[in-house]
């Protein structure tokens, strides 16, 4: 749960987005301008111009629209109608001035001088215009959704072939790699120079957090500081890349994109009991550096790929959970609506996570900005609606449409079938048991007539031979008793939940989809053959009959020659850069469309994408190249002159600072306390009921008291652990390439008051006090040890004085209260203060 309060530094945010009391009271020029527009300009535009120049008019003379800012700024056949601030250069003004015989508006009569003056004044003010979207559709020039013309957009162009070593630079000593040359060239072009290298403590902390999400231990730091050779750095980088903790961090980056969760979310928040297998598959695959193209193919079509062993088959099946793990509206929905909604959710995920494209926009109409016509959307949707991720299963006493599961292991399918059969037949078994008991009662009363009637009606409630009245009544009684007992036993012992995985499968009758008019599932348009985005390739796809086309989709997504592979490589390279450097080369990491940002370093992006493809899609090798670059190693300090030129640090004149994500935050605290267990975990939700957020008070949820790494904590949609909510964990309902990094007061409350923080602080204090043998029991030595554990730093003299004085004083206060744990408590308060400090929360 994110508890978000208004915070002071965001006053600016409120000021901008929200209360404009400041805004209005101050009457800034912009407000003044808009007032002027509303009082003077709009009425006269409506009166004199809209008749021919508005989106609602039939005429649209000269192609010019004056009912929106976009309309006049794009202009008509003669170009922009207004140049804000430049009265004489504005066509609109010359037209109303009636000075140019070829351009006189309005055509019938010139406007009165005072009206012209109003327009002149308005243009001189910069033409402030609050009308933001009144005719957006109409002002489009050409057709933005045209897939062929759209190939000109930078993201769809072929990868550039930059020089292997990067561009020429002046400061030839600075670059350590081509990456650095690309960065430096841009800096030099802007008269900027890169920051100095970060000091080695800062660097080692940064590299540990970025690669494995944990701080280095004081021993690891000490070893690194002893050897300042490049080899020592390379050695650490390689160790970290090969450590199992690497996947626990980098796997989580993919899980953000895969909208991983342990429950369905939305209206019926059923538990995804099996989702953890997919989570662990991702972590393992990242650790094994499975080539990224293969990693994608297994997730899109793992169920359809060939396999040589049951183990491989199961891994691929688990991977194919990617499409099944999204949130779905489960109740109260038309099944056809649900099918389209599920496909839409999958397309949105594939589009943004893999291609950086907002495909979902083309569900209701051709994409307004990007070259994705509705036909392409439904060509892809056909593949997904020809696949299925839902099946009917028994859950909480009724048959429901639930996520599809498949048994794992050589006998998995039988076990799954037996399990489902039990729950499907349980109501009948219960009924049978009830009747068998009745039969027994009648039998005990020795009412032969009644029994005969009963047995005839309920043959399945009577044990074999019992109906035979010629047999010994004692034996019959015993047989029926045994029968009742056996029924009771089988009801009481449901089969164990077999190992299963969430999975996608091909539908029974794959088929092409019709375009849905206005996106409404029941309004059918033209049928479109299944296929891919034409902006990327026009190779027609051949889907064997009876197949969904998902396998073909998997190959197309990763094919660098005739498929979307180059785009996918760009998107991935950018994501890796974003995680390592702190900002994407394209900062809108999930949106490479026309509404996204342009790359700050396009050649570098293409260079990285090429490196990725050339290394057979090895994510680790690209990360290694970045982490060994000098760019990665810069310090993060502010520099006034550079800031004046590039305030957002887009060109990378320094390293970006980052606030720790919640996983690193928690793992680092537990690690300082010496209680973090880095071993992989299986399910952390197995103790929950089928309804993940039951209506009613269920205190079992959101457990975070496992000592495991945070990547294994429960991710219940709509009920995230407090820590996750407060520190901007990804919303697991949708692909999240870019988590927010807010700084809000609830984070302060969490660090000051949350029991988990205080527990970690106390454990750290106890650990520290027990460390005497190695570092001496002097408070100074302890403090140094603590700084090393928590901050990878040494205290300054000032800090040492202040903190030790605090310890002494606080310990004294506890002692005065006869607290037997005074020393631990005093140190725990210092530990907590360090955890809560910016030195810990902000990664340099």
């Amino acid at each position, binding site marked *: 749960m994110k508890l978000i309060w208004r*915070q002071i530094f965001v006053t600016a945010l409120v000021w*901008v987005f929200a209360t404009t009391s400041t805004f209005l009271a101050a009457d800034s020029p912009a407000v003044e301008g*808009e007032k002027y527009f509303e009082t003077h300009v709009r009425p006269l535009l409506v009166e004199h111009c809209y008749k021919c120049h508005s989106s609602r008019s039939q005429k649209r003379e000269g192609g010019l629209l004056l009912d929106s800012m976009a309309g006049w700024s794009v202009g008509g056949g003669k170009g922009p109608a207004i140049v804000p601030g430049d009265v004489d250069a504005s066509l609109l003004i010359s037209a109303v001035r009636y000075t140019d015989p070829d351009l006189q508006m309005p055509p019938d009569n010139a406007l009165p001088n005072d009206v012209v003056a109003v327009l002149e004044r308005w243009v001189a003010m910069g033409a402030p215009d609050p009308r933001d979207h009144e005719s957006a559709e109409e002002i489009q020039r050409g057709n933005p959704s045209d897939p062929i013309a759209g190939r000109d957009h930078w993201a769809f162009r072929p990868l550039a072939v930059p020089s292997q070593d990067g561009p020429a630079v002046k400061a030839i000593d600075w670059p350590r790699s081509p990456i650095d040359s690309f960065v430096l060239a841009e800096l030099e072009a802007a008269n900027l120079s890169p920051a100095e290298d970060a000091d080695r403590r800062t660097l080692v902390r940064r590299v540990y957090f970025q690669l494995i999400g944990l701080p280095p231990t004081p021993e690891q730091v000490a070893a690194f500081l002893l050897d300042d050779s490049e080899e020592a750095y390379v050695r650490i980088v390689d160790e970290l890349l090969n450590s199992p903790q690497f996947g626990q961090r980098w796997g989580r980056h993919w899980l953000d994109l895969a909208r991983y969760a342990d429950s369905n979310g939305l209206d019926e928040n059923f538990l995804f009991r099996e989702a953890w297998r997919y989570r662990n598959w991702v972590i393992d695959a990242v650790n094994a550096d499975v080539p990224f193209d293969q990693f994608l193919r297994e997730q899109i079509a793992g169920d359809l790929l060939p396999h040589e062993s049951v183990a491989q088959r199961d891994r691929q099946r688990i991977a194919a959970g990617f499409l099944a793990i999204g949130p779905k509206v489960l109740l109260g929905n038309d099944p056809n609506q649900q099918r389209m909604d599920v496909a839409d959710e999958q397309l949105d995920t594939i589009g943004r996570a893999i291609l950086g494209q907002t495909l979902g926009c083309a569900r209701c109409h051709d994409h307004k900005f990007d070259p994705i016509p509705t036909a392409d959307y439904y060509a892809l949707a056909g593949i997904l609606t020809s696949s299925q991720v839902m099946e009917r299963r028994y859950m909480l006493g009724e048959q429901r449409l639930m996520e599809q599961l498949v048994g794992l292991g050589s006998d998995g399918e039988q076990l799954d079938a037996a399990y489902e059969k039990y729950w499907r037949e349980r109501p009948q078994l219960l009924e049978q048991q009830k009747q068998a008991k009745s039969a027994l009662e009648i039998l005990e009363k020795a009412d032969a007539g009644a029994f005969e009637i009963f047995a005839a009606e309920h043959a399945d409630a009577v044990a074999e031979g019992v109906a035979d009245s010629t047999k010994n009544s004692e034996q019959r009684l015993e047989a029926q008793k045994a029968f009742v007992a056996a029924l009771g036993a089988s009801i009481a012992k449901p089969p164990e939940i077999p190992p299963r995985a969430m999975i996608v499968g091909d539908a029974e009758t794959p088929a092409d989809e019709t375009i849905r008019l206005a996106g409404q599932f029941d309004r059918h348009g033209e049928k479109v053959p299944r296929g891919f985005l034409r902006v990327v390739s026009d190779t027609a796809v051949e889907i064997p009959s009876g197949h969904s086309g998902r396998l073909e989709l998997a190959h197309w997504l990763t094919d660098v020659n005739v498929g979307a592979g180059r785009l996918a490589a760009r998107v991935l390279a950018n994501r890796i850069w974003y995680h390592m450097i702190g900002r994407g080369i394209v900062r809108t990491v999930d949106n490479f469309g026309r509404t996204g940002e342009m790359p700050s370093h396009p050649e570098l992006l293409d260079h990285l994408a090429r490196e990725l493809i050339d290394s057979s899609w090895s994510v680790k090798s690209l990360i290694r190249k970045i982490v060994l670059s000098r760019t990665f190693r810069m310090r*993060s300090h*502010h520099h006034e002159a550079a800031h004046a030129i590039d305030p957002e640090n887009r060109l990378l004149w320094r390293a970006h600072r980052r606030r720790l994500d919640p996983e690193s935050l928690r793992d680092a605290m537990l690690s300082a306390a010496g209680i973090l267990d880095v071993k992989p975990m299986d399910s952390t939700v197995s103790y929950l009921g089928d309804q993940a957020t039951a209506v009613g008070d269920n205190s079992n949820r959101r457990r975070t008291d496992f000592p495991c790494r945070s990547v294994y904590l429960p991710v219940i949609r709509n009920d995230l652990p407090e820590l996750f909510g407060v520190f901007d964990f990804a919303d697991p309902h949708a692909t999240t390439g870019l988590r927010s990094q807010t700084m809000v*007061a609830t984070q302060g409350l969490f660090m000051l008051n949350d029991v988990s923080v205080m527990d970690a602080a106390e454990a750290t204090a106890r650990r520290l006090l027990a460390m005497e043998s190695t570092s001496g029991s002097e408070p100074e030595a302890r403090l140094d040890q603590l700084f090393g554990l928590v901050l990878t730093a040494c205290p300054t003299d000032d800090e040492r004085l202040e903190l030790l004085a605090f310890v002494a004083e606080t310990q004294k206060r506890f002692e005065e209260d006869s607290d037997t744990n005074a020393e631990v408590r005093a140190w725990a308060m210092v530990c907590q203060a360090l955890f809560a400090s*910016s030195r810990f929360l902000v990664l340099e």
Partner: protein
Amino acid sequence: MRCHQFLPTTTRRAMLQNSAAGFGSLALAALAGQQAVADQKLSPALPPLPHVAARAKRVIFLFMWGGPSHVDIFDPKPQLSAISGQPLSGKSVGSDADSVGTALGSPFKFAQHGDSGVWISELFPHLSRQADRMCVIRSMHTEGSAHGEALLRLHTGQANLVRPSVGAWVSYGLGCESDNLPAFITISPPRGHGGVQNYGSAFLPAMHQGTAIGSAEIPLAKAVVSNLANQRLDKGLQRSQLDLIQSINRRHLRDTTVDQNIEGLIANYELAFRMQSTMPQIMSLSDESKETLELYGIDSEPTDNFGRQCLLARKFAENGVRYIQVSTDYTWDHHQKVQPGHVKESAKVDRPIAGLIEDLARRGLLEDTLVVWGAEFGRTPMVENGDGRNHHPKAFTMWMAGGGVRGGLTYGSTDDFGYAPAENPVHMHDLHATILYALGLDHERLTFRHAGRNFRLTDVFGNVVHDVLV
């Protein structure tokens, strides 16, 4: 369906550069130092606010979880009673089916109240005395026949996609009037049926998410705000610890010269510390007079719990919170025994709600506080399980009071049986548009750029119901 909400990038950027708000959002990027801003900062600047004259400054939304029956409370249907027990023909309610079920007339007596003659049944005797302040909308309709879907639509306008909640939009649109409290507080919110999504911020900046106090299943008297108090340190010790933290932070800031994150962090700790005392002060009802407590039915049953919620809502309203939601527990879902069920549930909320309106009026707060009462849907005019009623999103009643609505007005109507809207249907999107309008916000202009396009609360729908506003 048409989206009127797109602008080409170039123009949007040009606009950013031209407007002060645009400058602000750029400044924000520098200030907040968040990379999330990368996408958001391309948001078109909000037009100056308010878009229209604001009638209300805040909203108190009284949510009746489960769905009260409109034909038993606000929408009397003598014809339904006349055919009670007989099939309700599809033809009579515009349905293709031969029969939509068996009619169940209301067991409750209705009467007209106040000078305006608003119809209210005997279930709400206290509220009836506030009739002239109420604007009853009888022609509400929505989609979603299951609670989860309908709750999400009521609170966020959408069910199959995660969208910001109404309160989050209001917080985003109006900001907060208080230095010590969030703009959006939800008292005892439901945990199920979408849970936090019903007061979430989705893609809006996280600060706009509702702050939850307790949850529907817990009596308010036992509810706490997470981490508002330290269980191990007394205030003096904690202050000394905070001073130490701030000293470390300030030293860090000095070393790095400029960093808005660290400055923000320092400010946040002070705010957090202040909130630790402000919140409990407001949440404590000890400074309220006996008369006030009685007005809300506090300290007597069955009104104590909801009375506390309503009184707390008033206190938050007084202290500058913009959007306050109060929720019942999941108790209005009477598939069986609608009569005793409704008697029991209305008794819990009638006096507290009437007390809230009266109290707001006495304090001069009602004129700029919009009170909204309603649920995710109504209940069928047809019987279910012998003596119950099923979910009914096709038609139901909500009412508003205060903040710029026309008191004593009954707006819209349903057919003779309460099955479907007859006159002036008001969709949930229309209600959302109207709530925003009352607050001075134009639902078509209150937009946020996300994933490449502008989003708004009402998607591509919604019409302001001007007739219910003064």
